[in-house]
């Protein structure tokens, strides 16, 4: 095949072949991701309600969006949820990884136990979680039956606390995955460095705080990106656990966007909330990407 081509054409082919190989993927992404983002941006400026309409009406949807109490609640909830979720998952993941790295007997059993929640969708676990958190059916009831009468755990019914139950379930799902990332990071640290540090008389504590955890910086970043995108996209979790309730106390931007676009027939407002969400995602991801990509070579 190659020999049948004249020398010059062959060279050109070899030159552009890699780019040719990449182009279908790039084409798909440009169309189905960036094309659709532009489309959504356009919809946010139209009077679309039930199905897309193409009559522009300016920024009215954005004005409506910021006038909605639900939207403000959703943003506040995202702040609470996002910060707690990312912090707890990272911390728990790191601690469990360090503990598991202590030549633990039964690591082969514990690891999949920590990891498996990531394999399940909330369509599967939603009901179980809902029961577990329900004071009349779940933990509180069980404790009462076991004789601990004063035990109280009714957060899911409490407007001010319900968002924290969402955090509990979300941490359950992803902290094991973060643990695996940290564990992999710990195992990947060059043993020479550790030996040298030990020879210098570094204690176990300082071995972790001074040498190993700083080495995990790239893992922290990867974990942050994975968790941040899960937090912003969090949808089925809320639907399964509280469906946005009590009242609308656990509304998140993703649930807001879905309900305005698809069940309230205000597609324009839904699209404008999607644009804001994308802007938020970009403000987190783009600096990360920039730093990541510049650093390398």
């Amino acid at each position, binding site marked *: 095949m190659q020999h049948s081509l004249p020398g010059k054409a062959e060279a050109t082919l070899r030159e552009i072949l890699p780019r040719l190989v990449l182009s279908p993927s790039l084409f798909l992404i440009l169309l189905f991701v960036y094309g659709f983002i532009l489309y959504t941006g356009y919809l946010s400026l139209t009077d679309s309600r039930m199905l897309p309409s193409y009559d522009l009406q300016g920024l009215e949807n954005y004005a409506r969006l910021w006038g909605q109490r639900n939207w403000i609640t959703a943003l506040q909830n995202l702040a609470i949820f996002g910060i707690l979720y990312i912090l707890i998952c990272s911390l728990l993941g790191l601690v469990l990884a360090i503990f598991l790295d202590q030549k633990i007997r039964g690591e082969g059993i514990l690891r999949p136990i920590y990891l498996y929640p990531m394999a399940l969708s909330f369509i599967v676990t939603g009901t179980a979680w809902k029961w577990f958190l329900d004071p009349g059916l779940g933990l509180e009831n069980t404790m009462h039956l076991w004789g601990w009468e004063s035990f109280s755990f009714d957060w899911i019914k409490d407007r001010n606390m319900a968002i924290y139950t969402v955090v509990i379930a979300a941490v359950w799902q992803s902290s094991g995955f973060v643990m695996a990332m940290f564990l992999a990071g710990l195992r990947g640290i060059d043993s020479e460095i550790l030996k040298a540090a030990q020879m210098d008389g570094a204690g176990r504590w300082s071995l972790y705080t001074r040498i190993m955890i700083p080495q995990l910086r790239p893992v922290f970043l990867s974990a942050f990106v994975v968790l941040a995108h899960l937090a912003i996209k969090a949808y089925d979790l809320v639907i399964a656990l509280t469906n946005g309730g009590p009242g609308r106390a656990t509304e998140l931007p993703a649930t807001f966007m879905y309900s305005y676009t698809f*069940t309230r027939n205000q597609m324009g407002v839904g699209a404008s909330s999607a644009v804001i969400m994308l802007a938020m995602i970009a403000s987190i991801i783009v600096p990360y990407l920039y730093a990541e990509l510049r650093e390398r070579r």
Partner: protein
Amino acid sequence: MFLGKMTRAGLGMIAALGLSTSIASAQESVEVLHWWTAGGEAKALQVLKKDLEGQGVSWNDMPVAGGGGEQAMTVLRARVTSGNAPTAVQMLGFDIKDWAGEGVLGNLDELAAKEGWDAVVPDALKGFSKYDGHWIAAPVNVHSTNWVWANKAIFDELGLKQPGSWDELIAALDKIKAAGYTAVAHGGQAWQDATIFDAVVMATGGPDFYQASMIDTDPDALGSDTMKTVFERMATLRGYVDDNFSGRDWNLATAMVINKEAGVQFMGDWAKGEFLNAGKVPDQDFLCFRFPGTQDAVTFNSDQFVMFKVGEDRQDAQMKLASAVMSPSFQSAFNVVKGSVPARTDVPNDAFDACGKKGMAELAAANKKGTLFGSMAHGHAVPAGVKNAMYDVITAHFNGEYDAATAVEELVNAVESAQ
């Protein structure tokens, strides 16, 4: 030889999988999008499926459950946008009008004229089954939403009789509460809160007020003192609900009444299925009566099969489907199972139980008197956007975020900004 073996093995497998019901390509078929996906209601649909198969039309089932059809409506949007609309879609209330407005629905006029639908379907239902004077949907049932379900043992024990007015209701609830039961079994989900709200509006302001506030969304009615009383009454009812109500599914609330933990539940007639399934008998183990103060009126929601525009080759099957839905035998068979009453007023009531017979009689009476109204809570009074705006206020108030005066104000604002 070898091929023959393969084919036979293949056929065997297909038969074993239960797919043997002839899938010849030339055969007529209908695709039906619905959310009756489990238990009795899905079984009831099978009556329809069998009926059609008897006429040589195969039934391609497209069930999508979740959120009282919300999920299915999302799917429908995707399907219509991709130019792949189903033959028929189960739909409720204003969704039908909204879709009709998009100009994507079929036309059933010819069939309706032939079978005389106009004479047997209540006018209030026709408001949804017809658009611009054309038939676009075949109504399957009428659920009425202003029912009270009561545990008869508790009522007997405390010597209570069916309350006929708001004050009698409160007196009864007080007694039930004092006896140590949960007075009102309720699940704190927006649509459940709104279901009670509907009934309280009707009981407090009467049919005219319901029409003005919930259907015409007249700002004066929404902001009136009567509406303030409605919210105050909602707060009163909140006092009879247990602390653990938030987020509870309606059927778990029903179970509380069944298990003699709670006195009454305010819920649509689908609750009956739960009682029957638990082996309870109407009038013997449980009572069904209208929400006190709404005895002469019925708030309803009605499931309809909306027919979409399809290619000419599929229209014949579509008409057969519509005709089968409207046949009195299906209307009776389906609604006996579903707990609702037929959408046609000329269906014999022999097969129905005591509650069902009562429901049919009251529906016919309300239709005559002009007191049959679409339920706001179930999307039969106002468009989805307005409905959800009302939900927000009702739920927030029920959960203690607003007092009655603020709630009235918020209601007026929310409705205005959603329109």
